[in-house]
């Protein structure tokens, strides 16, 4: 054996990294690196398989055998486990089927029709201005024939409401065009014999009368008290191209705040309570007053109580600690909105409801990394030891980034938590973990865009967007156009897509590229930019970011195409140099901990 091989292994929440170095003298020569998925929960014996696999793979790349190994160094990980929960705090309810406010792709005719609702097969007995209500099973030709016949008899038909997607077909066959709203799935629930109004705006416009309180008052001859009552209807219809409003004796649209309960935060010798429906800002403000947080609990029997119990249960499952011993050490609350189907809606109407997302973080009592080290040693037939504490090693690795110097702070942007560590001029280091990272971003994107599929939300987070504009070209979110020699598949035609390495993948949304982009960037900003400042303030001398000179971004999310820019923007005002880590001038933001372990080992021996 001419030289001895030292391997640093960093077991993270989602990935395990290994870095092989030969140590001929007193400085390590880095040979290769490898990356695998972490097996099991970080800090548990299940990690052994992933760690061994990473070491073997790195050795293979370096063309060396495990027999040459001198020592494997593991990080002393602070097992940080995070949980997520989300609760809507507002709810829109339509009572007595008073309103239909959906946006069928192709309503018919245009204008406003005000009259009495009558089923199409009862038109013979009707009189006065009439709105025909057409159930499922009616063919468009028959509907048109029926309406034309009624008009010929002298009945004034002012509008129609249809179950099927037939509005244009029916209007094209009428002698006198009227506004028609279609695709009303539960048309049988439209109250009959009631005064109602149907409005369809011209293409490219939104309705003007039914989305205005005084418009409704004029249509239904309301007094001031009644006008006050219907103003939520007007608000709910704003922005639609078509709408139906039925005036029923006690029908209403309510926008209700759901009492979600209080959150109890204790720390710094204080215990404070905050209503979750007060929103994220209020929660974070209260949290700031009880730093460092000892524990957080939710009011039993309320949404927030269930939310934190769920987080605690998840932690119990993965750590084996009893729920009573699990302490929530940090919380990040984020305001968001969730599109929810309106209760009592007739056409699957969706209203954006306010919600609060909470990320909670638990630090388990002790790490079982020594067990992992023993098992790794047995599997590889060499020494394995715990080489250092994660945060300190990360700083050490980050310092090999060209252009950095102490005092240096690192931000490790992970999946479950955002970690910060600081090394000052005296060689003293400190580290914190705060709740909320990549997984919360994915959750926010998924819920705000109502994506059922977690993979799609993940793709929106990771890859830039584009719009497929023909079978052969896409327009990227920055406006550039890319041509494809092979036709794009029809399931992505005209859709908003994510530009994944496998090609364009559709995003199941009716929203524009701009909207999806805004949601994505806001989610990243609300989590990472907020957490960067929060975490750095906890390690910065005197809590002042101005005391920091260099901030180095590490971890998987530091490879993201825009998160580093968003964080740099957030830190720009504090006069710090912020950039993506480039460990050893070549490894990028990966491998800081693994190579930090090797450097520390060599320096110490």
């Amino acid at each position, binding site marked *: 054996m001419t030289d001895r091989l030292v391997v640093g292994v960093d077991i993270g929440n989602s990935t395990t990294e290994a870095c092989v170095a030969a140590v001929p003298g007193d400085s390590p020569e880095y040979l290769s690196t490898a990356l695998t998925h972490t097996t099991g929960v970080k800090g548990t014996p299940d990690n052994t398989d992933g760690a061994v696999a990473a070491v073997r793979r790195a050795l293979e790349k370096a063309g060396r055998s495990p027999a040459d190994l001198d020592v494997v160094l593991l990080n002393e990980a602070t097992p940080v486990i995070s949980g997520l929960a989300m609760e809507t705090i507002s709810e829109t309810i339509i009572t007595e089927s008073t309103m239909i406010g959906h946006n069928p792709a192709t309503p018919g005719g245009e204008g406003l029709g005000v009259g009495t609702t009558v089923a199409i097969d009862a038109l013979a007995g009707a009189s006065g201005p009439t709105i025909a209500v057409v159930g499922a099973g009616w063919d468009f030709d028959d509907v048109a024939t029926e309406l034309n016949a009624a008009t010929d008899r002298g009945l004034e038909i002012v509008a129609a409401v249809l179950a099927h997607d037939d509005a244009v077909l029916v209007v094209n066959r009428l002698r006198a065009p009227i506004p028609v709203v279609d695709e009303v799935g539960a048309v049988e629930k439209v109250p009959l014999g009631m005064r109602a109004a149907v409005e369809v705006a011209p293409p490219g416009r939104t309705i003007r009368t039914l989305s205005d309180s005084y418009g409704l008052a004029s249509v239904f001859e309301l007094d001031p008290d009644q006008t006050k009552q219907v103003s939520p209807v007007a608000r709910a219809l704003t922005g639609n191209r078509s709408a139906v409003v039925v005036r029923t004796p006690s029908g209403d649209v309510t926008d209700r705040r759901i009492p979600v309960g209080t959150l109890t935060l204790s720390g710094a010798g204080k215990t404070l309570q905050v209503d979750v429906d007060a929103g994220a800002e209020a929660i974070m403000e209260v949290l700031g007053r009880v730093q460092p947080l000892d524990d957080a609990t939710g009011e039993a029997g309320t949404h927030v109580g269930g939310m934190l119990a769920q987080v605690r249960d998840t932690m119990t499952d993965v750590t084996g600690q009893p729920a009573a011993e699990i302490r929530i050490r940090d919380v990040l609350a984020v305001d968001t909105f969730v599109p929810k189907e309106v209760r009592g809606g007739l056409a699957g109407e969706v209203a954006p409801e306010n919600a609060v997302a909470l990320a909670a973080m638990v630090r388990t009592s002790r790490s079982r990394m020594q067990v992992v080290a023993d098992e790794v040693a047995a599997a590889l037939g060499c020494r394995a030891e715990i080489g250092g504490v994660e945060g300190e090693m990360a700083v050490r690795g980050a310092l090999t980034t060209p252009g950095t110097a102490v005092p240096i702070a690192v931000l490790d942007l992970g999946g479950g938590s955002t970690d910060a560590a600081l090394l000052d001029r005296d060689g003293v280091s400190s580290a914190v973990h705060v709740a909320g990272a990549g997984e919360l971003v994915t959750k926010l994107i998924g819920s705000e865009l109502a994506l059922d599929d977690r993979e799609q939300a993940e793709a929106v987070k990771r890859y830039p967007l584009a719009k497929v504009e*023909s*079978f052969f070209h896409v327009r990227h979110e920055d406006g550039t156009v890319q041509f494809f020699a092979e036709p794009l598949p029809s399931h992505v*035609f*005209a859709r908003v897509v994510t530009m994944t390495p496998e090609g364009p993948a559709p995003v199941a949304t009716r929203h524009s590229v701009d909207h999806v982009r805004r949601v994505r960037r806001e989610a990243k900003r609300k989590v990472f930019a907020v957490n960067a400042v929060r975490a750095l303030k906890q390690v910065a001398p005197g809590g002042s970011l101005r005391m920091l000179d260099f901030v180095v971004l590490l971890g998987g999310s530091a490879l993201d195409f825009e998160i580093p820019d968003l964080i740099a923007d957030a830190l720009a005002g504090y006069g710090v140099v912020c950039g993506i880590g480039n460990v050893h001038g070549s490894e990028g933001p990966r491998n800081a901990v693994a190579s930090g372990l090797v450097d520390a080992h060599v320096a110490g021996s």
Partner: protein
Amino acid sequence: MTEKPAIVLRHGGSPDPAVLREVCAGAEEEGVPTRVEQVRAAGADGAVALAHAAALESPLETGIGIDESGGVAVHHASLPAEAPVQRVEAGSPRPDLRIAGRTAARIVKVLPL
């Protein structure tokens, strides 16, 4: 070309009137005109070949083919002849036929199919 913009729908002579009606209704509901043309019967893979020829003929580069058995295909002139955008098997229920017409119209309007 002086002809009016329209989706061209081609059939081999005696299409089921119900099939033709539903396909045309699908395009009409989307607000895009169709022009129906009768041609001599095509070969084995009738609907796709008819649809491709129709797409080449259409000022909107979009065509629909209906074969003798009632099978429907939707095509775009820029695509390879053997790769239609959509196929609807003969004997499919009415809503599926309506969707074929809608698909053709949405290609023209560049909307998700």
